[in-house]
């Protein structure tokens, strides 16, 4: 009894050091993990699909997929896992931590890049390193899917306009015969520069104190 508990605590401590969440936050996340998995050690897609809060969410599938996407684990692997353990769960959550006061500009830049990478992975479903027009169209369609009968055409038009914009900003002087393959990560960064992801893509984790800021990857 006691031994396994201390072992869990050690694991938590290690996780906390690695990811930058506080011990309390890890504990709370763990509790939620157990809840989702039905007291198992791993969760699968079905577990996440059962969450009621996600029902009305138009990009539900992408969110669930993101948890199982190996690219978000920063291990260098690609593809999709079928199940994930607590460590992987926390690593994905790590992407949504807010910046701390002590961070320097470079740290903030790194954090921004990481968050943008997460978004990029969500869009780039075939993992070829670029977001093609079709993939982008799909994104917009999903966004508008739960908003009522909108039809594919509007989504297409918007996606086309958006793509056009990306191309004009990043490669302003293309010859008529050249073809813009797709949005690469650099271009993606460029167009979303104004949004300041590091301040926006955050959620509040219960117990707000975050002391360190590393998130898996060592700086």
């Amino acid at each position: 009894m006691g031994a396994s508990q201390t072992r869990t605590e050690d694991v938590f401590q290690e996780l906390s050091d690695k990811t930058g969440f506080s011990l309390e936050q890890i504990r709370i996340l763990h509790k939620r993990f157990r809840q989702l998995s039905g007291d198992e050690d791993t969760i699968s897609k079905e577990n996440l699909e059962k969450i009621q809060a996600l029902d009305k969410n138009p990009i539900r599938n992408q969110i669930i997929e993101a948890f199982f996407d190996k690219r978000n684990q920063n291990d260098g692997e690609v593809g999709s896992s079928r199940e994930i353990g607590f460590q992987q769960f926390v690593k994905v959550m790590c992407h949504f931590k807010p910046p701390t006061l002590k961070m320097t500009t470079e740290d903030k830049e790194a954090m921004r890049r990481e968050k943008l990478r997460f978004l990029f992975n969500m869009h780039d479903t075939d993992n070829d390193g670029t977001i093609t027009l079709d993939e982008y169209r799909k994104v917009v369609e999903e966004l508008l899917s739960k908003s009522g009968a909108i039809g594919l055409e509007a989504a297409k038009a918007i996606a086309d306009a958006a793509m056009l914009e990306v191309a004009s900003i990043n490669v302003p002087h293309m010859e008529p015969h050249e073809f813009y393959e797709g949005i690469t990560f650099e271009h993606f960064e460029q167009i979303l520069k104004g949004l300041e992801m590091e301040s926006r893509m955050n959620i509040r984790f219960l117990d707000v104190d975050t002391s360190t800021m590393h998130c898996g990857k060592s700086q």
Partner: protein
Amino acid sequence: MALSCHPLGSFPPRLSVCVLLIVFVAAASASHDAPQDGTHDPTNVTHKKGFPVLLFNYDHVRTPFEISLWILLALLMKLGFHVIPRVSQVVPESCLLIVVGLLVGGFIKAIGEKAPALDDTLFFLYLLPPIILDAGYFLPVRPFTENVGTILVFAVVGTLWNAFFMGGVMYGVCWLEGGPLAGVDLLSCLLFGSIVSAVDPVAVLAVFEEIHINELLHILVFGESLLNDAVTVVLYHLFKEFSAVGTVTVLDGVLAVVCFFVVSLGGLLVGAIYGVLGAFTSRFTSHTRVIEPLFVFLYSYMAYLSAEVFHLSGIMSLIACGVTMRPYVEANVSHKSYTTIKYFLKMWSSVSETLIFIFLGVSTVAGPHAWNWTFVVVTVVLCLVSRVMGVIGLTYVINKFRIVKLTKKDQFIVAYGGLRGAIAYSLGFLLPDHPMKTLFLTAIITVVFFTVFVQGMTIRPLVELLAVKKKKETRRSINEEIHTQFLDHLLTGIEGVCGHYGHHHWKDKLNRFNKTYVKRWLIAGERSMEPQLISFYNKMEMRQAMMMVESGSSAKLPGLISMQNIQPKVESRGRTIPKISKGREEEIRRILRSNLQQTKQRLRSYSRHDLFADPFEDMNENLSEMRFRKQRVEMERRMSHYLTVPANRQETPPVRRVRFESDDQESSRESSGVRARNVGPNSSPADAISVLEESPPLRPNRRSDGGARRSAEHGAQATDDDDDAEEEKGEPQTQARRVSDPGPN
């Protein structure tokens, strides 16, 4: 003053402004004792005079005349500043205006007239509401709601702290100092503190407008200045009442707290009610577009006045009204009305602001003053000190709850940006005859001057020095909009996975509530179902189209990227289109264009109250008319497309791509559409294929939303192209089928 020492080249404007100024002021003051020269009762004819050819009857028009004169003066001054190149960059406009006011006041006093003072009725009922309405209507709601906690803390707790700290310390100082200050009791000091402690929205707006700092800081200071009105109202009334009586009990304190909630929430409620009323009214104005802006103004003003009736916070009411009304009104009103609303609000608030500052200057010269070095200096110093202490202390607490913390730089700007302004002065003016009134007024004026001049002038270089983030100038792009929405859903989803109901969850719930219930009631027609992304996209397209028209059709093209660069290339089938010589091409184009022009000139029956049918007019047209137009325009476009783009080869000159005015992207996209056609599983009925059909499904599909609006601008009414007649016959069904997705979805 800088007016008279400028090189000769630009003398005339300045000189004439000076002359006009002097003339007006002289006229204004001379009018006070203009003799009545006219004959006033023609009935009393004792003996026959000659028929009066020219009469002078000034009294009759005196009031409106003087008012107009003052306003004109104010605006000429404003004009004058911008003619002087360098001064307006160093000195904020508000300072210059106060100086002008001082000069004018001095001048009037020198003549021996009584200068008009900043009368509080005038100020609170006429000058202040336009500024607040302008601010409230265009309040950026997203940053405001994201930071509402912080703003409230600064507004409520910060103002309370300022008031009590200042009141207390002033009392101590007066007590220590003795002499002329000995008679000042605690309650008076607290009253004084409550007047002088509130950050003033007018001053903040005037100064911050020119320095363009980033959105977060702007909304923090500005939001605070708006929301502290409730606190000020309560404190002011509380201390005024009890200053007369002399004591205040605990019960009164408790009642004051209750009063605060009543005042603020009541104000918000009143504003929201009027806002909903306004939105609801705008739903039915599709036939009387001309008076639409008036509804916005009147409902808002009524909200303000109604709140003032009950001594609720008028400012908060006005803000609530504007914020509530705006999304629905904007969805309902025509584009012209939207522009009118925007410009009228800006115009009125600009005039008000100018007048306020000038009157401040004039009142300073006019008003009775009682200068006391200790009191005034201590007041000024205390203002700064208490503000800094308040901000630092509060930020320390707030940062524990914020996701994105406020840095030291942010804190400095928030503290330094706490300007006092005309509201403080007017409140002081409103004081019933209090033994210390003149002393207070002098001190208030000094503080106002100090903050506006010193802080106002130095904040710009300080912002540069500290490298505070500036506001990003570019308009929001479609990509940013897509990703903002994406992020919203993503964060809500992650919160759902985490299992706790954070503020994304509630925001999402509110949005959904808004969409299912509220929008249905308050927005006319199908626009109520339109998701935000679509509206944004439509607005953007409209804007780009208008820009193209304004800049001249083929003048410049934004980049040379077109759809063909994005769409994957596919071989397209050979087409059998007869090649047409250039000359014939030109002729056909000319015919088409002239037809377009003719239709534009066709007028409906003339009425003074009618707006002309305009390409950019309604976004809410009747759907079948829309569809009809779409068909027509498409016909034309198709014609010229096939005439000028031979088989599958895109001739480069970008100019070619822009055929119709305001049609850059449309035609550039469609010219590549030929290739696009074979792409994508979702191209529309590929069955009905004919030469003419090759125009891509892409076009009408896309236009089902964006084009609905854009095609409106193509010469409105029907084009009578006889050339198109035959093609049209085969077209309508397929057209109708493709266009079956109603415009605004």
